[in-house]
């Protein structure tokens, strides 16, 4: 991962503690990849550590909204901040209890019998590049004053 990680802070810090390679600049890219590929057993061990890290703490993604908000280059005014706070609180109240139960092992893992469409990083893998997720940030921006806290908005 490159030097400009601002999103997914908790996840990136955790991965870096599990030996993810932090590239300080593009001039280090080749050296870092050559070194990574040189020792395949060490690379595999690193990947396994990262896999354990990614699957052991799914609740880390629960903070994606405030993290995205805080790193958005389009700073919000007080009304938008209040609205974002309200939405965040509403999401936490809805998502928090099941996540707490899952962390405690009270909520059994269930495999659904039907496909689930998620927009945003509600689950690992994000929204994919389907037509609606791609269009929704632009459409939302065109009809509302709230800057979208999306990867597109962050990259803009």
């Amino acid at each position, binding site marked *: 991962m490159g030097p400009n990680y*601002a999103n997914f802070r908790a996840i990136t810090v955790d991965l870096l503690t599990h030996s993810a390679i932090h590239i300080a600049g593009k001039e280090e*890219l080749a050296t870092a990849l050559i070194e990574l590929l040189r020792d395949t057993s060490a690379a595999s061990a690193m990947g396994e550590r990262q896999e354990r890290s990614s699957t052991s703490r799914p609740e880390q993604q629960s903070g994606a909204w405030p993290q995205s908000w805080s790193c958005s280059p389009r700073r919000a005014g007080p009304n938008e901040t209040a609205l974002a706070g309200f939405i965040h609180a509403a999401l936490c109240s809805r998502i928090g209890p099941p996540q707490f139960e899952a962390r405690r092992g009270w909520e059994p893992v269930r495999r659904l019998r039907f496909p689930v469409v998620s927009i945003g990083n509600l689950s690992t893998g994000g929204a994919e*590049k*389907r037509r609606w997720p791609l269009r929704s940030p632009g459409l939302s921006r065109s009809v509302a004053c709230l800057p979208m806290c999306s990867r597109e908005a962050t990259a803009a």
Partner: protein
Amino acid sequence: MAGSTLEDEEESLLDAWPSILDAHPQLAMLLAPRHPERFGAVAALLAESGLPWSRRSKWQSMPPKPLVPGEIVLLDTIGELASVYSLAAAAFVGGSLVLAGGHNPLEPAQFGVPS
């Protein structure tokens, strides 16, 4: 596997690619730009580079063939990136060499792919 790349990052990857190939000549690279509207621009960049490359979207109209060492595949299809990470020996997660904040590092990590 270089996923969710943004403008300028593909150029950095292509600059680094010959050095990486010198050390590991058996490699191939899958390059997946983050935004589909940039597929054409990245294809032009690849064409200018003089490196061997192909477009994933063209595979549907061609007989199957194995990847050639050194080949770069432009992943210009929708919805395949997350699963393609599982095939990688190593992954670079885009949006992080430029000031964009980085994309989801869990996508390769969930498959145990070092990043």
